[in-house]
């Protein structure tokens, strides 16, 4: 049984003009110790999926359907207090901006000890020891001195290390990392990704890595899910999806990554932009931009079908002839 099973997840936003569906019929699994990358353009629903899993959808957003199971146990219908106990203890989260993720008025030690003691029955002294251990674990030099320092005394990269320590200090088995390196310097990004990968491997923790950086995905993830306009376009092993993408959208994404070579080539771009939630076209949501579009695409909405090692939602694989 997979660690996390998401089945037909739907996230809705009731507005005055009707209910908007930000995440539509998304299903995927995350195995024990696996890193699943989630990519897509801004507004594709990747962060929203992560927020739904951890139970932190901003109102009025809500789960409109489907199930989320952790270890086979449903967590999408837990009471707020039960869900609170799952957060941090079983599912950790890391957000984009380490500069604002830490409370400026408490020392990093206080924040670590607080998190540890919320979830684990420990004395203050034990929690302190464990917190200092975690600071060392995420590569912060002189952890026993840094323990008593405030977030503003740390650099951006160091703060993201503290954030990782905070997300992992109660030993959750799943981490949701929402663009964990976007706000960091390029030189620091690689370090943080390597660190995240290492601590997950060492503890056999799984991770959902939300990003729009294909390089990060290629280097870190075991499998990758591509999202477009609230739906899964394609999911599969990283090597397969990156090298032989099945969905025309994934192919377009791959083509738009600049390559360093002797002869500069023209960058392929996907024409147009992702539709807004209010006017998603009928049929396949990608049809206005798809280079391989044919008549059926405007009428039939493709479902996720097994293709090679993975799955793709495209009529090309449904035996419909163009």
């Amino acid at each position, binding site marked *: 049984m997979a660690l996390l099973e998401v089945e037909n997840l739907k996230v809705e936003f009731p507005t005055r003009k009707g209910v908007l569906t930000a995440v539509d019929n998304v299903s995927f699994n995350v195995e024990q110790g696996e890193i699943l990358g989630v990519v897509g353009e801004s507004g594709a629903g990747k962060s929203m999926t992560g927020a739904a899993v951890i139970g932190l959808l901003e109102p009025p957003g809500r789960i409109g359907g489907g199930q989320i199971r952790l270890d086979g146990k449903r967590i999408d219908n837990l009471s707020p207090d039960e869900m609170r106990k799952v*957060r941090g203890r079983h599912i950790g989260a890391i957000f984009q901006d380490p500069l604002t993720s830490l409370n400026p008025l408490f020392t990093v030690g206080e924040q670590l000890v607080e998190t540890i003691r919320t979830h684990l029955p420990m004395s203050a002294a034990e929690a302190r020891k464990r917190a200092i251990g975690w600071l060392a674990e995420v590569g912060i030099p002189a952890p026993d001195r840094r323990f008593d320092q405030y977030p503003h005394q740390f650099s951006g990269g160091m703060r993201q290390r503290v954030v990782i320590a905070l997300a992992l200090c109660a030993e959750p088995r799943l981490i949701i990392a929402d663009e964990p390196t976007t706000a960091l310097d390029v030189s620091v990004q690689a370090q943080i990704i390597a660190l995240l990968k290492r601590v997950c491997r060492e503890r056999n923790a799984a991770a959902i890595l939300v990003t729009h950086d294909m390089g990060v995905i290629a280097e870190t993830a075991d499998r990758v899910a591509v999202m477009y306009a609230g739906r899964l376009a394609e999911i599969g092993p990283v090597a397969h999806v990156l090298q032989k993408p099945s969905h025309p959208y994934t192919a377009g994404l791959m083509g738009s990554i600049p390559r360093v070579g002797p002869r500069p080539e023209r960058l392929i771009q996907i024409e147009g932009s992702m539709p807004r939630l209010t006017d998603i076209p009928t049929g396949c949501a990608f049809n206005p931009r798809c280079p391989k579009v044919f008549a059926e695409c405007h009428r039939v909405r493709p479902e996720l079908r097994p293709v090679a090692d993975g799955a793709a939602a495209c009529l090309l694989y449904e035996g419909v002839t163009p």
Partner: protein
Amino acid sequence: MFVFLVRRLLQAVMVMLAVAFIAFLMFRFLGDPVNNIVSQDATQVEREEVRQRLRLDDPLVIQYGRFVANAASGDFGISYRNSRPVSALLAERFPATAELVLVAAILSLALGIPLGIYTALKPRGVLSQGLQILSLIGISLPTFVTGILLILVFSVWLGWLPSFGRGDVVDVGWWSTGFLTASGLKALILPSFMLCLFQLTLIMRLVRAEMLEVLRADYIKFAKARGLKNRAIHFRHALKNTLIPVVTIFGLQLGGLIAFAIITETVFQWPGMGALFIQAVNFTDVPVMAAYLVMVSLIFVIINTSVDLLYNVIDPRLRTDPTRATGKGA
């Protein structure tokens, strides 16, 4: 920290010297003091004699120095009207104002902060919306109107509380307190409520606005993601961040409380410094006015300096001294 303290204290001394200078000039602006002392048909020789005896012929700077030196030792001269030392008059009146302002300040914090938190945490509740409307009324009604309404309802119609005075007071050393008798405490209720009403609504609205802002912050979202209890998130993480601007405003408003006390003391015939000041203005009692000015400025300066020091305790980012910053807590 030490450097900061010394710098702050030096600034405070400069402010006090400037205020003392203004107070000192008041004596000159309001006519030749000799005229107020000698009789109308005094000769020029008599006038000069008085002037020399009171050393009013010294250069301005020397007179100012003497004024500051005397003021520093608590000597503000003799009241023109009461013919008693101004310092004695102030000492007599100060406890009344201090107790009134203290109770009003405590009330505004003790009610304002919890109400602000409540309305921020339950923004759509009926009680919250009602409190918001009430606070709007509280913030827009002039305080003397609310004071008179309070007297009408609680003293005239209901007859529960006295409409004027401090009730019975007990002397503790030179300090006369109304805290120790039932009538003294009863007399405090209406004036302190009138005085605190504006601050109370201001603090409540400020706490609410700040709290709503802080609850949207990333570190609150991350605290939720760490599975912290709601109590810890609201009252530890959010409240502490909310309190920084509240401390600023409260510091400024505490000075405002002392200033507004003049109106409250007039409405309730409260025998405090404000009432003394109004009396002094009516009779052009310059030494009392000068002393009041210096006293109130001193209180302002003390409060503002304390607020600056308090920031350092609350917000670690402001602790400039590196040895201090790496230390534990405040």
